[in-house]
């Protein structure tokens, strides 16, 4: 009887989440492109076989993972530092907190365009600074081996505040009494960070990590605007590759296969991230007794 109340929510989830997924799966088993006149024709898993031998897919998977790992990793560490700073009792701390959140509030396309200009050679400030310290005409966004660093920097700038906000909320749930009691017992600031803050922040760290990994793994708008996946596809992500297949090559079958594959990889990545984080943070407090 109680489960009846779950029906509306379940239906909604099935509609917006289950249906597209099933539709992707169905499409991935069909050829549906310009060659078939956009009519879906069952092709015996040819899309999946093509995916496995598609060098561009694996290259993009590597690039997407590289982007996700670096940007989320840097963001988590930076956000923890910022959250710890913002958690201090400061005069007019509300102002600092609002300022910190500003980058996150900007629409991605706008900030991506701004970053494209910041990295611009020869007019952008970054290029001028690099020139000053002796790196002439480095032109980061046009350099196939450096362009991804530019996108990571932009993503870190934009999304660190979001994680910092989550972690700050987490920090504020920890009662001050705990720190004072520990101080009376002889705990140093470093020990109270390791034994109190980190373990109690664990759920929030996990939340930030999973949220951001999922987001970074499906990155599209930032890269589309900043580099368009270039130069020489060096910043192309799986989402962009899938988009190209659907919208430029009009190959909906293969595009769905890429999306579905990256979705499954993402689930695997999030699960492993979850397990790894739990193991690491548990070790902070494990001692035999």
């Amino acid at each position, binding site marked *: 009887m109680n489960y009846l109340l779950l029906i509306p929510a379940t239906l909604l989830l099935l509609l917006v989440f289950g249906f597209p997924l099933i539709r992707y799966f169905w499409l991935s088993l069909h050829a549906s492109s310009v060659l078939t006149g956009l009519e879906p024709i069952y092709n015996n898993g040819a899309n999946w076989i093509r995916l496995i031998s598609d060098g561009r897919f694996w290259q993009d998977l590597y690039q997407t993972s590289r982007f996700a790992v670096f940007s989320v990793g840097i963001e988590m560490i930076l956000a923890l530092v910022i959250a710890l700073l913002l958690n201090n009792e400061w005069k007019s701390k509300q102002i600092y907190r609002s300022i910190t959140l500003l980058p996150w509030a900007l629409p991605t396309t706008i900030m991506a365009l701004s970053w494209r200009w910041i990295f611009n050679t020869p007019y952008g400030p970054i290029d001028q600074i690099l020139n000053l310290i002796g790196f002439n005409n480095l032109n980061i966004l046009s350099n196939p081996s450096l362009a991804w660093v530019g996108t990571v920097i932009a993503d870190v700038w934009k999304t660190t505040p979001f994680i910092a906000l989550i972690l700050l909320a987490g920090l504020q749930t920890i*009662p001050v*009494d*705990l720190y*004072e*009691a*520990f*101080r*009376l*017992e*002889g*705990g*140093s600031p470093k*020990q109270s960070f390791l*034994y*109190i803050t980190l*373990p*109690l922040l*664990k759920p929030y760290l996990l939340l930030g990590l999973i949220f951001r990994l999922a987001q970074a793994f499906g990155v599209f708008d930032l890269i589309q605007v900043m580099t368009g996946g270039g130069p020489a596809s060096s910043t192309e992500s799986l989402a962009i590759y899938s988009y190209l297949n659907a919208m430029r090559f009009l190959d909906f079958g293969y595009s769905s296969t890429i999306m579905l594959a990256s979705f499954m990889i993402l689930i695997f990545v999030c699960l492993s991230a979850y397990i790894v984080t739990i193991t690491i943070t548990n070790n902070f*407090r494990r*001692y*035999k*007794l």
Partner: protein
Amino acid sequence: MTLTLENLGLCVQRNWIIRNINIEVQPGECLALLGPSGCGKSTTLRLIAGLDKPSEGSISLFNKDLKGISPVNRKIGMVFQSYALFPHLTVVENLALGLKVRGYSIAEQKRRISYVLELLQIATLRNRKPQEISGGQRQRIALARALLRDPLIYLLDEPMSNLDAQLREDLRPELRKLIISGDKPVIYVTHDQQEAMAISNRIAVLNNGNLEQIGTPQELYLKPQSIFVANFIGRPQINMFEPLDSIRIAVRPEDIYLDPDGIQCKLIYKEWLGQNQLLFFDTPKGTIRMIGDTALDIPSEPRITWKKQKEHHFSTKSGKRIS
């Protein structure tokens, strides 16, 4: 002298939270800091613990000035009102963490922890987390942690205020046995005057950051030095009469009795207290409370009086006791 607070004061943003606090605690004594919320009793405790720095005055423990000595080195066993147990650690881990950071060996940690777990009869809880045990049990863990500290002095900050009345009375003998009757001095912060009278040797009453009076429970009850103390100590509350010639007279409800030559009054309300009852009379001097075992019915119009020597006189100007 074990603990001496001299002229202690704390000023935060030009507001004096407490000021001119002078208290001496004898060896083995339990001193209650009593007062309404916001009176500065917890602040005083935090200053002793070293969690806040005093703006003026000094604190000394065993004739050693505590200025500049870190909270750890003051060797203080503190029980927080919230118990401050670490929610992510089990009971044993909660107790062990302090020992661990103070550098005890694993064997020594085990020995000490088993000892207090036995002492407080909480060994069965050892692998539970704080949110999995009851409030009374949590309070015992907090006490166990303070005991493990092996401190020079115990500071208890409203240790019972999160427990229900029944549990509070049940835990009192235990608290007395374990901590209060030991040879170490105890400072016990509470806003409950009955608890303060039941548990301590002496009570310091604080109001608005000032020390109103310090003395034994009997002294405070029989000779309150100010209107505030008279009102705060003793339930049912003392009868305060309207001031006359800048003198305010107060009489305890139990000192009032029926007398044919007394003042005319009207019984308006009565509360059954069990052994006796609390009677409210409407009189020309205002409402008077009396404790009596007389079976009076509403409405009745008896006459009541009290002995002159049972009166407390206060100056309306200073609020202090006269004579």
